[in-house]
């Protein structure tokens, strides 16, 4: 595997790509998100697995996003996602509202090579009429039993950050198996990690159980603190002060521009 960086990973994401992104509490490759902003990516289609936080707001603020598909978008404790809200008001992004298990089901359909997946519930929600790509069919095993079906969703790229990878490209994600689902469902998976470890993760029976095999992984870049200011499970907590500062600055377009300019001037500031 050639030496990769957040910038080389970002270069592998074409404009217009559909990108699966993890929730803030899981594995977010903020370093690559900033690199995408730096190169001025355009018209990305973000798929939240299943909700979107800081990384989505940054990409939206940087003008990289055309479509957002999510069960929710917010900064969590830091409140509303300001650039998402502004883009919605300005009409510059298309929002595809979903519900968490519908996104999981659509990704699992792609994981299985199945054309669609049925999901109980949801009928009668206003989500349904606003999602022309969803349908309600009769359960073929029932009588007068309507059931929602969602089409398979295979993102072009799964982008994630994880604690460690080995030199083969196997990536340890522990119990954060939404990252496994993302890697299985997406055509290509790009990963930043805290560290590249010696040995082979699959050779350790305990670690193997939480490892995305290299088979699914196109490229790995070693970017310590690559999730900051988000946290990374088992490694570091979120930097609440930095996230609150973002939430404050990003309330205006100018404030966001200043925040992003500072990040891009000193990328290591994000990891500070």
């Amino acid at each position, binding site marked *: 595997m050639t030496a990769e960086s957040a910038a080389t990973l970002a270069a592998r994401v074409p404009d217009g790509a559909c990108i699966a992104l993890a929730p803030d509490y899981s594995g977010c490759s903020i370093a690559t998100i900033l690199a995408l902003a730096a190169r001025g990516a355009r018209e990305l289609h973000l798929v939240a697995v299943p909700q979107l936080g800081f990384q989505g707001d940054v990409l939206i603020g940087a003008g990289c996003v055309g479509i957002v598909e999510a*069960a*929710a978008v917010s900064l969590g404790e830091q409140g509303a996602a300001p650039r998402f*809200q502004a883009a919605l008001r300005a009409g510059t992004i298309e929002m595809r509202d979903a519900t*968490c298990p519908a996104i999981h089901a659509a990704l699992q359909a792609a994981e299985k090579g199945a054309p669609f997946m049925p999901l*109980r*519930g949801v009928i009668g929600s206003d989500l349904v009429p606003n999602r022309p790509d969803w349908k309600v069919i009769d359960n073929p095993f029932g009588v007068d039993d309507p059931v929602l079906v969602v089409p398979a969703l295979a993102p072009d790229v799964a982008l994630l950050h994880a604690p460690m990878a080995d030199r083969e490209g196997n990536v340890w994600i522990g119990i954060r198996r939404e990252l*496994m689902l993302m890697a299985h469902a997406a055509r290509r998976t790009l990963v930043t990690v805290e560290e590249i470890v010696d040995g082979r993760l699959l050779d350790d029976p305990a670690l193997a159980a939480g490892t995305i095999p290299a088979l699914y992984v196109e490229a790995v870049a070693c970017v310590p603190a690559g999730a900051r200011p988000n946290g990374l499970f088992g490694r570091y907590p979120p930097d609440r002060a930095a996230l609150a500062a973002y939430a404050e600055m990003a309330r205006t377009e100018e404030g966001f521009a200043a925040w992003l300019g500072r990040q891009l001037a000193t990328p290591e500031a994000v990891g500070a």
Partner: protein
Amino acid sequence: MSARLEELLVVAIAGMLDGLGHVAVGAASPIPGAAALLARERSGGRLRVSLLGSERHSAFTDGGRELFDCAGQGRIDAFFLGGAQIDGEANINLVGVGDYPRSKVRFPGSFGSAYMYFVVPRVILFALEHSRRNLVPRVDFVSAPGSSPPNVYRPGGPHALVTGKAIFEFDRARRRFRLCSVHPGHDVDEVRAETGFDFDLAPEVPSTPEPDAVSLALVRGSVGAAIAETYPGFARRVLGIGG
């Protein structure tokens, strides 16, 4: 020692969980979380509690989908939902105020509500705010409906609505809320004035009982210490626990 509103709510909600097997609590829900932990203590540990966002009180190992799969399997007996808007038929709106998609006010989104509301038998709606702003005649966007036609698979649905002023039960047959109790310091007239939808009255509408001393001690003791792992700010500010 008199109870704070939050403590009263924790104890009242815990009473709705007695005898259940497994209660799950979503993110950003300190009061329901504390209620679930209190119910667990009172059950002698028989009640299983899954607190999203907790390391200690969450046992899921299959990623983000497991909460929903687990509910779909029928393994979750009670869950909590909020609603930026809730209407008299227990429809909830987590998306926005105004004409979707050009909402005047946009909330984060529906999360898993459109699923959990259908498959969890006892969904408790929780909103500290109690006003005509959030308790509306008709939600602007139905994230999840309060009821469904009889042919729609729906083992679950709304059980109660707990606010900062009162507790309602939901009558699924009548598709209406029934006011069951009003918290100390409030009365039925005030609740009626501050509620944007029509509702029934229980034959008697008592005052929501003050927490018993044993429960209150638990809330301020072991339950508070447990909830502090996930909600340190709440534990400190409301229960006076921790730094």
